[in-house]
């Protein structure tokens, strides 16, 4: 009897969590159809004009392009660096492998803000003024721990005799990685890539200190929009991003399984 009450209570909490988490998203989606230029819920009719205005936002396309470039490049770099490190930790028989693994994942727990100002000072001190490159370096620091965490866990479960088999069948080590490891570990790569991409695309605490007037990532641009003139265009933009994420999540579920991402890949 008490078990049933407990289960009901648990489900009530779960539903509460869902409603709580989804409400701001629904508000955003609703606000995007507002007929008036006020960022508020649509009263008296709906309008799609804010969606049309997205591309007209000042500096929108460069910001989007920059965010996409940074996300893709930092994810690619982190995947390369993180996979190599994971292979080393899984096979290298190194003493202190666990400490090294912790060290690789540690930037996750550091406040992004602190990392931002630290990098700002550092780049200035060494005279590294190329904003785009500085942002890239910062984003690799941000994304590498996500990738390392997922790949270390995935690599620990990888059967390395598959690599030996590939080598006896005519593959060099690099070819074996391409033809056997990557396809077999595809779920881990996908999860790592997804987390890394989102971490970079949505990042603001590190980016806010490294962007300048001409080079802004999308989240920083959105902060600027909110400061200056918050109209429903912002809501329309966010809604589009949400829809894109839904598609991404459905694809991930089909390919890998969301429960896998939440369980061990996370």
């Amino acid at each position, binding site marked *: 009897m008490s078990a049933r009450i407990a289960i009901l209570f648990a489900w009530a909490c779960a539903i509460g969590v869902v409603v709580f988490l989804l409400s701001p998203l629904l508000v955003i989606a609703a606000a995007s159809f507002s007929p008036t230029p006020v960022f508020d819920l649509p009263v008296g009719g709906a309008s799609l004009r804010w969606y049309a205005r997205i591309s007209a936002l000042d500096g929108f396309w460069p910001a989007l392009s920059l965010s996409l470039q940074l996300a893709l490049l930092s994810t690619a770099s982190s995947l390369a660096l993180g996979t190599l490190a994971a292979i080393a930790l899984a096979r290298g028989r190194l003493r202190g492998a666990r400490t090294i693994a912790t060290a690789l994942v540690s930037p996750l727990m550091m406040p992004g803000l602190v990392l931002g100002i630290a990098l700002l000072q550092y780049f200035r001190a060494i005279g590294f003024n190329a904003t785009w490159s500085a942002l890239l370096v910062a984003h690799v620091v941000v994304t590498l721990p996500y990738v390392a965490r997922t790949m270390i866990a995935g690599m620990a479960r990888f*059967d390395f*005799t*598959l690599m*030996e*088999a*590939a*080598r*006896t*069948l*005519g*593959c*060099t080590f690099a*070819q074996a990685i391409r*033809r*056997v490891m990557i*396809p*077999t570990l*595809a779920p881990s790569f996908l999860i790592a890539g997804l987390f890394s991409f989102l971490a970079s695309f949505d990042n603001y605490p590190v980016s806010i200190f490294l962007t300048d007037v001409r080079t802004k990532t999308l989240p920083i641009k959105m902060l600027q929009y909110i400061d200056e003139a918050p109209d429903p265009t912002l809501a329309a933009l966010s809604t589009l991003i949400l829809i894109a994420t839904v598609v991404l999540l459905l694809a991930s579920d089909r390919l890998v399984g969301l429960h896998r991402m939440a369980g061990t890949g996370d």
Partner: protein
Amino acid sequence: MSPPDAPHLVVRQVSKRFGAAHVLDRVDLTIAHGELVTLLGPSGCGKTTLLRMIAGLESPDFGAIELAGRDITRVPPHRRNVGFVFQSYALFPHLTVYGNVAFGLKSRGRTRGDIDAAVKRALSLVHLEHLGARRIAALSGGQQQRVALARAIAVEPEVLLFDEALSALDRKLREEMQVELRLLLREIGATAIFVTHDQDEALTMSDRVAVMFAGRIEQVAEPRVVYARPASLFTLGFVGLSTRIPGTVAASGEGRVEVDTAIGRLSAIGNFIVGAPVILAVRPEHLRPAAAPSGNCASGRVRSIVFHGANSLIEIEAVAETTLLAQTANDASAHLKVGDATRLCWPVAETFAFPDPGAGA
């Protein structure tokens, strides 16, 4: 390519240390074309290490390995043209049966048509022609084993290496595969090396058996010879059953020794000085109940009889806690029961003397 009567594979003085222990200690082995050789021994004897060295997955500290006249000691595995069948099969989970078998052929850059023909041939050799499109996860253990075999064969390697490849199968399947595998290898004229700890498998499948212990090869010979004429106490103990009786040499000459044991004076084949501590050994199938004494004899009481279908294993307790092990056919003349007193005799020519390792050389 070396001429057919030259050795196909030569292992020369190969050694490897792991810390202070010798994993392999100056191992020499020569294998001819088309020969099926088994490396037999307990865990840790170095047999798997040696096999992996031939494949290039590990490298020796000292020594050389030659394949078809070519020194391959430093050649990486992907250029050695050896086929390797792993204990866990190591089939690629993301490829179908066809994809797995074709893998090595793709590495060698063969054309689509060539690959297709080779895969079909390999699959038909292992009787899996119709499973090309199947996913690995949907295969049974026996089927996976065959796919692993087909994959190794498809590239027509110089030599095939099997690392305990049958140990994951259940007993009946295993015995069937042993026979099938031997026929298949003969059919394609392959040179093959097996690693196993199962002496029955070694005796069934091989042209020659190399018994290994502590990084050294104790004996390399045909199965018949390894069984009936073991070169060392270890080989005697590891392959087959035996009766072992310790004693001291009382007289010796012309390849024979007279030995004093707890059950009396026995004669054996061997060369020792008088007074040397030895262990006499004889295989159980040679002990027979005898009316008239001939060769070596001993009396005792039957302690246990273990039924094995075609024959039985009988333990006889003789004088001074010496145990005799006899194997008799279960035909109508078998009358012994537990507790019976009996007298057994066996030929001197099948009695061997080995140095006694435990008697402080």
